[in-house]
Structure formats: structure tokens, C-alpha cells
């Protein structure tokens, strides 16, 4: 037998009676790797599905869209392409369902042609997708049919036309289910669309052409031609390659983000590994000393435990990879609504391999801390019983090298995931900062507990508190692992709550909860009359005039667009502006600079306008700059007299540009009106009456939108929390591991106390006090950090003042304390009702 074989043999023999002790070590790695493999397998399957279904993402080879009928030049080019073509008009409009007497703002697509060319419009019945154009009937999103108790054969009124519902729309190629969150999709034939009466001035229409190339078309050439044309004309287009890239990128970002959250679980598992191996090696000091005594070299001694750590890491990672492969079967349920393809699942061997490799590497790197200390265990320990601190056996150089190795591994992995070194460094430093902060807090808690342990308190309390700082305490481990998990999950909860809080207007009595748009000039009085007849207060009735930018300070928009080094942003130059005119500011605005001029007498002079600060930035404009507007063919010259800070978060019409009275009154215009309805029934009744009298008027039911947004945010955050949950589970496992490894020490203490006359109740009380303290500390630390993180997110990212929800925090504290206490007490189960000697004998084995 050679020396290497002996090391393996010894590793095997030595592990025989310890495997149970290493189960929790395994579990920490299992959970971390499971999270990794689940996410990366899912991503790979999703990418495969996108590649396989790439043409179905668009339903055609090319999609061109424009907010007005196509330019002649564009039309001519599209005609020259040949192939097959479908045309559609997309817009939002109220849909009225006579059977249920309900209305809903819907996304209408009036289609003509054989779209989709790839994939199918899935409908129930199947034939409806083919027949609805010939039978002049409609396809309506299935969820809305179910919600209103409708079925094929019933009718839907869109504008002035009532269509028979030919079928329930289940799936449109390239559109995720989430596409219908903000309004059900309704497909109607394009022929006769004018008869709906909806194509009026002010209506937001999107003209779309879907093209299937004839054989031999070069998609790259088409792309280049359209790109060149797009420099001077305002239209949008997408081909299969571009759509695939867009979808792929979005999914990559999401899965990378989830992967990093999962990676945190694995890193926590790594901390668990280091902690359990430390305790494990501590129990092995005398064994190592004996082996050293009888001739084992320091490397041989270390290798025995290195092999055990690697093998356990491999077993844990393999089990984790298998579990992860199973969990990915559940992930489509979570995200199917957000992805535009049918996800086909399969085993991803690459993900499994990378997962196992990552798991083993993490196990190995973290285990090196205690393992390198094995090399320093002296054979002299056989002669003297020495209580050594393993971590102190390592030199500073070794420690710094190991931390550097861990840091490099984290940066490397994050770089691999994010494909961006700066982001990877941010992730690593952020994580390191969090961990250092948690370690410092743990140190302060231990120091504080030591200093402040009140002598006037009972013995049990003092002993329980003292357990926080005694040798081999669990304070640091718990705060690092559990604390980080809590920080992560709680940040998600609080951020979700913060976002939902900003749209919680329902209870605001003075805020509008119904907004009516696209009211034509001649309909305004009629709509107002219906509102008054319903006994409702009209909060706002604002005129809206559509216009486009013609020039800024004598430079035309075309000149700006031709200049690639321009400062104004493209969208701001290109968009159709919907401006209003009034002589006062409203409650959601305040002047930032300049002077608000509310009215003018001579419209032929330069018109003083007020521009929102957001748009000022995007136009790169200054107060005093002149702007010429194209108001539906009439140029109007203006100058920026003031800038306004606008609170866009309130559900009422707000404007980038406000004109004074005395200029736009004669221009073609339409109105937007806001109303506060006392309840949902009143809101539905008003919508119904208005839509029946004025079918082109759109009603935005704020309550409906808010519940949709809430549902959307809930779904997104659930996906993130699901992955984040792995960190909490790992934290709990590490806690359980830490508690289990100190079980013998606790039992000895408990037995000693009982031998000295302590009652069982007193022993239990000490343990309860210790774990309650630990729970409180971990919960408060994690939650405080999460409040900080959420506040920073709110301030820097969402621009929201964060006010923590103390109900959520209170519930979290209670849950976390209960969890820590439960694990702690489970660890000491069965030692209270047995004779001390029996327990000591058992544990010694």
C-alpha cells in the first residue's frame, strides 16, 4: 500500500463514525448547488426554447410599425420585398360586453392577412383563429371571458360595431401572458375598421405590417436598407434576429440576477462548510496529534481531512445538482407568464457539471481555512491537553491569501454571470461589505453582552446571555449566514412594499380613481353631463392638443437627428407631444426655475411655455431657449419661460409641456377628464354609460390598473423571493449545523449544571434565553441592513422616500426568533430526561 492509498484509506476510516455529523455540512452545499443548478438549467432550457422558436417570437420575418400610415417610400420598399404580408392597426379602446354589461379598456388589433406565418394564434375553438376575419367576428383574451362569464357566441362591442366572439384567444406568437396584464387583447378584422368610429383625431394608432420574406431574401440587406431609411423617417421595425436578441438579453439579465441571488446561498453554504469543518477539526486535534506522533507528515494529516471535505462537497454538490434539476421543473410555473416562448425542459448536463464544480470548489476553498490549520497541529498535543484556537494557528499571510482566493472566486463567478467586470466587482464588494458589517455587528454584540451582562439579573438570564460570547459561541456564524439571508429576503419584501406603497391611492378621497381619455371636442359637454347626472364630482377636465417638435433654437429636428453627436435624446425629438393649456399650476406641479406665465393676449408673439424638468434634461434645453412646434400643420413659436417639477406618480393627467391660455384654443383638441367615484359599482356604471354613448372614449379604471400592477409586482417578487428563499434555508441549515456541532459542549454544560443541582426547567431556560437573544440579534441586524438597503434603493433607484413598514418588520422578527429558537431547542432534544452519566457516555462515542 503506498502512502497516497493510505491517506485515502485513513480518510475513509476516519469518516465512518462522523458521517452523520457532516450531514448538515452536506445540506448547506446541497441547497446552494440546487439553487444554482435549478436556475442555470432553466436558463439553458429557456435559451434552447428561444432558439428553437425564434421565428415564432415575431410570427413573421419582419415587423414594421409606424404611428401613422406608412410613408410612400417605406411602403414602396416593403412592396418591393414581395413575399406574404399582413397588415394590422393596433390601438387601445373600451370594449363593452353586452351580456355581462361590463366594459374594459382593451388592446385592439385589427388584422388583415395570414399573420402569424410562424406559430399560431391559439384559440378555443381552434378554427376561430382562421375564421374570425371572414366572419367579421372577434377573438377575445380567454381570462377576460372567464372573468365576465362569457363564451364564444356572445358579443363584444368595440366602438360602434358589435362583433360576435368567435373564440377565446389563448396565445399569440411572441407575446408572453403578461402582455395582457394591462388590458385584454382583442383581435378583430381590419376590414371595415373605419366603421367602429374609433379612428379619430387624437386616437393613438399603430400601423403594423408583418412580412414573410420570399425565398432568397437576404435579411441582413433588408435590415441595412431599413436602418438607412430609418435615419430620416420615423418608423420602427424588428426582424427575427433582433427580436431574438432582445428576448434573449432580457432573459439573460433576469436569470443572471437570479443566479447571483442563488450564488449568495452557495456562499452562505461555504461559510457553513468552513464553520462545520472548523468544529469538526477541533474534535480531531488529538487524532491529528497522535498521527503526527507516530510519523504522519503535516501534509498527510491535512490530506486526510481535505479528501473528506472534497468528497463530502462532491456528494453534496451531486445531490444538490439532482435536486436543482428537479426544482427547475417548477420554475416555468413561476415565470411562464413573462416569457414569450413555450419552455421545453430537459436535463442540462452543462449546468449540472458547472453546479458540481462550483459546489466542490466552494467547499474546498472554504474548507481550506480549517484544513490549513491541521498542518500546524503539533504532536506535542498528545502529551498535554491543549485548548487551541484553530484559526489562530493560521498566519496572517495565509488568512489574507485565503480571503483573496475567495474574493477572486466570487469576482470570477459574478463576471461569468454578468459578463461585466465592473458589475461583478460591485457585487463582490457589496457582498463583502455586508459580511464585514455583519461580522463587526457580531463582534459588537459579543463585546456588548460581555460588558453589559447585568449582575442583578437571575442566573439563567446571565448564563444565557454569556453564551453569546463564550468560547465556541454561535453568534458570528449565525449573524453572518442567517443575517445575510434575512437581509436579502427582507430587502425584497420591503422594496416590494415600498413600490406598492407608491401606488396605494385607493383610499385617497380627493384623488381621481377614474380617468376618461380621448374625449372629442364635441363630446366633452355630453361626457360631463353624464358625470354630473351620476352625481359625481368632476375633478379635472383638461384640453389636450397634439403637436410635434419642429426646431429648437433654429436647429430643426431633422438636423438634430442627422447629428450623431447630438445632445437631445431621440425619443424627445421624435415623439408626438400631448400638451395642454391653462393659466394656473395644478397641485402636482411646482416651478423649478423661470416664471410661469398663465395667459397671453397676442398669440403671434413668442409663446411662453412651461416645460417639465425631466424633458428639459432630455432636450438638453435651457430656460429662454426657443422652440417651434408643429401643431397639426401650423407652426407655433415659443420660448421656455419656466420649468416645472412634476409628480408623475399621481393618477391624473400630467404634461411635459404646458401652454398659456390664449394660443391653442382654436387648435383641434380633445379632452381628458378625471373623476372620483365613491365605489367600484359607481365607477362601472359610469364607464358603461359613457362607453354606450361615446364608444371612442377610453376609461382608465385606476383601481383596476392598480390591482393589475400589484399582481404584476407580486408575481415578479415571488420569483425573486423563491430563489432568495434558498439563502434563508442555507442560513437555517448552517445554524442547525453550528448548533449540532456544539451539541456535545452544550450537553456537558447541561449535565454539569444538573449534577450541581440545576432543575431541568433552569437548563431549558438558559438555552431558550440564549437562542431568543441570538434570534433577536440576527433578526434585528438583518432587518436593519435590509431597511438600509431598501432606503438606498428607494433614494437612488426608484426616487421614493422609503418609510419602513413596521408591521412587516414586526412579523419578520417574530418568525425569525421562532425559527432560531426552534432549531436551538431541537438540537438539545432528548438530553433533559435522561441520566447525566448515560448522556456523557453516549456523546463520548
Amino acid at each position, binding site marked *: *500500500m503506498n502512502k497516497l492509498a493510505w491517506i485515502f*484509506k485513513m480518510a475513509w*476510516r*476516519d469518516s465512518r463514525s462522523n458521517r452523520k455529523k457532516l450531514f448538515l455540512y452536506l445540506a448547506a452545499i446541497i441547497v446552494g448547488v440546487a439553487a444554482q443548478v435549478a436556475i442555470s438549467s432553466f436558463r439553458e432550457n429557456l435559451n434552447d426554447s428561444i432558439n428553437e422558436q425564434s421565428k415564432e417570437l415575431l410570427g413573421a420575418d419582419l415587423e414594421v410599425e409606424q404611428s401613422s400610415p406608412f410613408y410612400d417610400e417605406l411602403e414602396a420598399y416593403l412592396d418591393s420585398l414581395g413575399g406574404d404580408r399582413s397588415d394590422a392597426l393596433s390601438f387601445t379602446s373600451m370594449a363593452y360586453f353586452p351580456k355581462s354589461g361590463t366594459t374594459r379598456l382593451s388592446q385592439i388589433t385589427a388584422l388583415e392577412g395570414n399573420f402569424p406565418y410562424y406559430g399560431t394564434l391559439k384559440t378555443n375553438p381552434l378554427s376561430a383563429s382562421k375564421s374570425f376575419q371572414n366572419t367579421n367576428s372577434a377573438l377575445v383574451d380567454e381570462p377576460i371571458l372567464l372573468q365576465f362569464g362569457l363564451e364564444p357566441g356572445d358579443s363584444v362591442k368595440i366602438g360602434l360595431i358589435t362583433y360576435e366572439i368567435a373564440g377565446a384567444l389563448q396565445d399569440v406568437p411572441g407575446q408572453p401572458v403578461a402582455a395582457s396584464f394591462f388590458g385584454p387583447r382583442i383581435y378583430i378584422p381590419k376590414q371595415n375598421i373605419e366603421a367602429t368610429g374609433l379612428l379619430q383625431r387624437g386616437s393613438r394608432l399603430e400601423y403594423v405590417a408583418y412580412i414573410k420574406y420570399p425565398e432568397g431574401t437576404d435579411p441582413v440587406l433588408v435590415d441595412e436598407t431599413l436602418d438607412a431609411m430609418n435615419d430620416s423617417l420615423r418608423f420602427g421595425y424588428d426582424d427575427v434576429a433582433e427580436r431574438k436578441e432582445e428576448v434573449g438579453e432580457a432573459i439573460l439579465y433576469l436569470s443572471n440576477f437570479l443566479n447571483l441571488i442563488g450564488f449568495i446561498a452557495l456562499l452562505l453554504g461555504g461559510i457553513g462548510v468552513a464553520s462545520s469543518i472548523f468544529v469538526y477539526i477541533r474534535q480531531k486535534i488529538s487524532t491529528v496529534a497522535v498521527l503526527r506522533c*507516530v*510519523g504522519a507528515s503535516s501534509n498527510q494529516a491535512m490530506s486526510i481531512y481535505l479528501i473528506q471535505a472534497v468528497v463530502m462537497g462532491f456528494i453534496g454538490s451531486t445531490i444538490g445538482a439532482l435536486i436543482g434539476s428537479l426544482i427547475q421543473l417548477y420554475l416555468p410555473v413561476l415565470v411562464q407568464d413573462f416569457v414569450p416562448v413555450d419552455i421545453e425542459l430537459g436535463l442540462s448536463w452543462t449546468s449540472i457539471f458547472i453546479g458540481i464544480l462550483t459546489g466542490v470548489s466552494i467547499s474546498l476553498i472554504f474548507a481550506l481555512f480549517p484544513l490549513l490549520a491541521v498542518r500546524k497541529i503539533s504532536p506535542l498535543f498528545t*502529551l498535554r491537553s491543549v485548548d487551541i484556537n484553530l484559526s489562530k494557528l493560521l498566519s496572517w499571510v495565509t488568512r489574507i491569501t485565503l480571503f483573496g482566493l475567495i474574493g477572486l472566486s466570487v469576482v470570477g463567478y459574478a463576471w461569468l454571470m454578468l459578463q461585466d467586470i465592473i458589475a461583478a466587482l460591485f457585487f463582490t464588494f457589496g457582498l463583502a461589505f455586508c459580511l464585514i458589517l455583519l461580522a463587526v455587528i457580531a463582534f459588537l454584540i459579543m463585546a456588548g453582552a460581555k460588558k453589559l451582562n447585568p449582575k442583578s439579573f437571575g442566573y439563567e438570564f446571565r448564563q444565557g446571555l454569556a453564551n453569546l460570547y463564550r468560547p465556541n459561541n454561535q453568534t458570528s456564524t449565525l449573524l453572518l449566514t442567517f443575517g445575510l439571508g434575512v437581509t436579502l429576503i427582507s430587502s425584497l419584501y420591503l422594496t416590494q412594499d415600498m413600490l406598492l406603497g407608491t401606488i396605494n391611492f385607493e383610499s385617497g378621497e380627493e384623488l381621481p380613481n377614474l380617468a376618461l381619455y380621448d374625449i372629442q371636442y364635441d363630446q366633452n359637454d355630453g361626457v360631463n353631463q353624464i358625470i354630473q347626472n351620476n352625481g359625481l364630482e368632476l375633478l379635472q377636465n383638461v384640453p389636450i392638443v397634439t403637436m410635434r417638435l419642429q426646431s429648437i433654437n433654429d436647429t430643426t429636428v431633422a438636423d438634430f437627428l442627422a447629428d450623431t453627436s447630438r445632445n437631445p435624446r431621440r425619443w424627445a425629438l421624435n415623439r408626438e407631444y400631448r400638451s395642454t393649456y391653462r393659466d394656473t399650476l395644478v397641485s402636482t406641479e411646482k416651478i423649478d426655475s423661470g416664471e410661469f406665465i398663465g395667459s397671453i393676449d397676442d398669440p403671434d408673439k413668442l409663446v411662453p411655455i412651461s416645460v417639465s424638468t425631466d424633458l428639459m434634461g432630455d432636450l438638453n434645453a435651457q430656460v429662454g431657449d426657443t422652440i417651434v412646434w408643429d401643431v397639426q400643420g401650423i407652426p407655433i413659436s415659443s420660448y421656455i419661460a419656466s420649468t416645472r417639477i412634476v409628480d408623475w406618480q399621481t393618477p391624473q393627467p400630467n404634461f411635459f409641456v404646458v401652454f398659456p391660455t390664449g394660443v391653442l384654443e382654436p387648435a383641434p383638441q380633445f379632452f381628458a377628464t378625471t373623476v372620483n367615484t365613491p365605489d367600484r359599482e359607481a365607477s362601472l356604471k359610469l364607464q358603461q354609460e359613457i362607453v354606450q354613448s361615446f364608444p371612442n372614449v377610453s376609461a382608465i379604471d385606476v383601481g383596476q390598473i392598480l390591482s393589475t400592477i400589484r399582481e404584476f409586482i407580486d408575481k415578479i417578487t415571488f420569483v425573486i423571493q423563491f430563489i432568495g428563499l434558498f439563502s434563508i434555508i442555507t442560513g437555517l441549515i448552517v445554524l442547525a449545523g453550528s448548533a449540532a456541532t456544539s451539541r456535545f459542549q452544550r450537553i456537558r454544560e447541561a449535565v454539569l449544571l444538573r449534577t450541581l443541582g440545576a432543575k431541568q426547567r433552569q437548563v431549558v431556560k438558559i438555552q431558550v434565553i440564549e437562542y431568543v437573544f441570538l434570534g433577536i440579534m440576527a433578526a434585528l441586524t438583518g432587518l436593519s441592513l435590509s431597511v438600509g438597503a431598501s432606503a438606498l434603493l428607494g433614494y437612488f433607484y426608484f426616487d421614493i422616500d422609503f418609510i419602513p413598514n413596521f408591521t412587516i418588520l414586526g412579523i419578520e422578527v417574530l418568525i425569525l426568533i421562532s425559527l432560531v429558537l426552534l432549531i436551538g431547542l431541537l438540537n438539545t432534544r432528548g438530553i433533559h430526561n435522561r441520566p447525566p452519566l448515560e448522556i456523557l457516555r453516549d456523546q463520548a462515542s
Partner: protein
Amino acid sequence: MSHILKIDQLTRRFKSGSKMLTVVDNVSFEIEEGISCAIVGPSGSGKTTILGLSAGLDQPTSGNVTLNGIDLTPLNEDERAEVRNLHVGFVFQTFQLVPTLTAEENVMVPLELRGEATKEVRKRAVQLLEEVGLGDRTHHYPTQLSGGEQQRVAVARAFINNPKILFADEPTGNLDTETGEHIENLIFDLNRKEGTTLVLVTHDLELADKCDRIIKIKNGEIESDISKGKEVVA
């Protein structure tokens, strides 16, 4: 008669807080091959430190240790481990068996470390266990054995590599009188039979009396060195 162990001006100091403690102070002696020698002295006199230094378990602050003709002083820890493996056997007061190994496996470890063939090693281990009266307990773990039985396993392990010298630290300190005597007899019998030099540290003067030579240590220095038939006072 040649010397198996030469201790030359050995000093060992430890740091205790801000002070340096001299535990062994300029000690020199030589031990002839094949004899049995007891190192005795009160607690804290430095006898276990001398044993540790003599066996190459520790490095002296100054002075030299030559074991079986090998100067241990310039060797690093791994090189000294090899010397121990080849030439030294140990018996400790607290038995120091590896708890995760069976009796047989514990005995085999020193030879296995050399990479020797398992079959022969196993045969030798079983033979030694039989000699110490544990032929029927070869597959028992330390926790399944009594204190006396564990020490017998330790004795078997100490002799498996045919050591030139056996160091024993209070080998009967944790045992009752009857068991202790049994272990003493075993050690001395095997010592004679295998021709091994025996160096033991003990408080037990009766046990020390059974040795050919007694070195008495006090305050880190040799107080007396008595060989059967002649006395040398330091």
C-alpha cells in the same frame, strides 16, 4: 554499550504572558541502548517536556537531541515525524487512540504510514494484540473497550514498528492498580523481548524502581541520576 539517546545542554523556554519561563534548564544525559529509564519528579518539574523534546515532539530553545545517532535539532517537523515513525514508539497516559479506528487499525497505523503491505501489517497487528491479550477484540472501537484494554492497544501500537526506543508518559496514570500492574508487566516484557530501550515518565516510584535507571528532575534540572548499582548526583 552504545547510546540510543543523547541529550546535550537542553534548554526549553516558554513565553508566559510577558515573561519567559525556563521549563528545562541546560539538561544533559545519555541513555544506553536496551535499558529501561524512568524520569521522575514532581508536577511541573519539566519531565514531560524532556520526554517531548527527547522524542522529537518539540523543538528545544537550545541544546541538542541525538536519537539513534540522528541529530534531531536541524530537522523540521516532518523530518522528525519520519524519525519517530522509524525508530520510536509511544504510550501515553490518556491512551491517545484514534477513536474512529478499530483496535487493529489503530495498531496498524505506524506501519501503514510507511506504505508497507497490508496483509503482513495486519498479521503483525493481530499477533501483537494477541500478545497483549486482545486477540478477540481486534475489531472493536476504542469506545467499546475499557481503559486498560485501550492502553493495551496503545502498547501493541507502540511495538508494531519494532522501535529502538519506547517513550511512555505516565502509562498507568489513568488505570486502577491491578490494571496498571498488568500494563507495566506488558511493557517491560515486550521491552525485554523486543530489545527496546524504554524511557518512561512517572510519578509512581514503585514503577520507577522497576527500571534500570532513574533520573530525578526538579525545577527543570536533573536532581539525581541513579543507575542500578551506582548513583550520579547532578
